[in-house]
């Protein structure tokens, strides 16, 4: 009888110290592909891990609208509120929504507010003309189309359309034949600068109210 009591106690203690599975560890560490690799289709966490892989590949491709769709699918899964997969999917969803809001604010038509020419010796304004139209693409949300409308110095305005890949901080830096052009979006508007052998030309652009 004593042995039975002891066995009972041991089994209860074993039940208390339940060891978390390896897949659980991988999910907590964000190793979703490993979790998919090591779980079977019957595993309740398999689908969640699979969807997380899809979400992260879309997010890493900067396909923000697709990411939101997948994050919502993960939200529908029967996971507890504090499940690490659910929390990670939610953070990604919030990041993408925040990003889409910023892109919405950045898109539009810009006109020249101030200009600055820095030729290494002095800084002065220079005459400039024209407008810029910025729109962001789908499904690659950070790929912008920039339409120059008679834009540039008054003696040589340009009317071209450029496809520019922006980084998530909404800046882009492109090499030109002799120099670099950079775009930086900020709260104040868009700063466009051309750096070349003749110095640095900065256009401070302001969004046209629509």
């Amino acid at each position, binding site marked *: 009888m004593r042995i039975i009591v002891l066995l009972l106690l041991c089994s209860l203690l074993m039940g208390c110290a339940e060891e978390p599975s390896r897949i659980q560890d991988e999910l907590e560490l964000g190793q979703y592909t490993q979790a998919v690799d090591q779980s079977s289709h019957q595993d309740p966490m398999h689908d969640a891990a699979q969807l997380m892989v899809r979400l992260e590949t879309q997010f*890493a491709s900067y396909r923000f609208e697709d990411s939101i769709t997948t994050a919502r699918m993960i939200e529908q899964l029967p996971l507890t509120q504090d499940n690490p997969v659910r929390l990670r999917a939610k953070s990604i969803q919030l990041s993408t929504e925040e990003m889409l809001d910023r892109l919405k604010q950045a898109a539009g038509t810009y006109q020249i507010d101030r200009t600055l020419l820095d030729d290494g010796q002095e800084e002065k304004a220079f005459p400039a003309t024209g407008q810029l139209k910025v729109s962001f693409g789908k499904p690659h949300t950070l790929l912008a189309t920039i339409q120059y409308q008679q834009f540039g110095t008054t003696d040589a305005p340009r009317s071209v359309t450029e496809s520019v890949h922006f980084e998530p901080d909404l800046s882009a830096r492109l090499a030109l034949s002799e120099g670099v052009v950079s775009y930086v979006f900020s709260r104040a508007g868009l700063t466009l600068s051309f750096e070349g052998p003749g110095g640095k030309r900065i256009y401070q652009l302001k969004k046209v109210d629509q």
Partner: protein
Amino acid sequence: MERCSLCGTPLETEATACSYCKHPVLKKQRFDEELPVSPVKPSRHVLSFIFIFVLVIGSIGTWYALTQTDSTRTMLAPPVQALPLSDWSDETSAYNQTYSSENPPASYDILKFVRQYTQTVPETANYSKATDTLETFSAIQFATLDAFQSEVDALRTIHAASDSPVPPRLQTVDFKRFVSKGDSYQVRTVETYQLPAGQQLVTYDVRYNVRLHTDHLQITHIVRTEVPA
């Protein structure tokens, strides 16, 4: 065996008084005769003990489990926040990140690593065996020598355009398939580069094999195929 209720001395079966303190036992005898109590079996004692034991442990367990979930819930109470930009963008360089068994790479780290590698591709296309030192090409920080050389061979279209004063540039990287096979990762991407001549685009279907080489990530194999426009 019956004992005296006053001093505890063992009593004879038929005794009417305690042999030691002379305390009468008549009353008890009469009670015993009226209500004969069957002796409790020892096994019943054990069974009731087990029952009470299980009940007590069970209720302690339930109470503990309930307090545990409550406390973890309060610990995780802060609302979910958006990720910091540096966590998911290419603000921090991925090639010098180190990992260990306690700090293994997360799946997003692999994607970030490959994405940052693709930014080095236009530069790799410029590589010339005759004039260039391999170490100056940033792609070598991401990939093995074999992978780098296979890239130089595969990037002919971009290489042909790289004489132009405007260098080719990366336009989009689309991650298509991402799986783990044991301790290696396989990533498939569709990459588009813009060539300077008339903004022409060139698209590649690329398969990468990434491995954790001692403490850092390394691309061990690349199969790059140009997708006809």
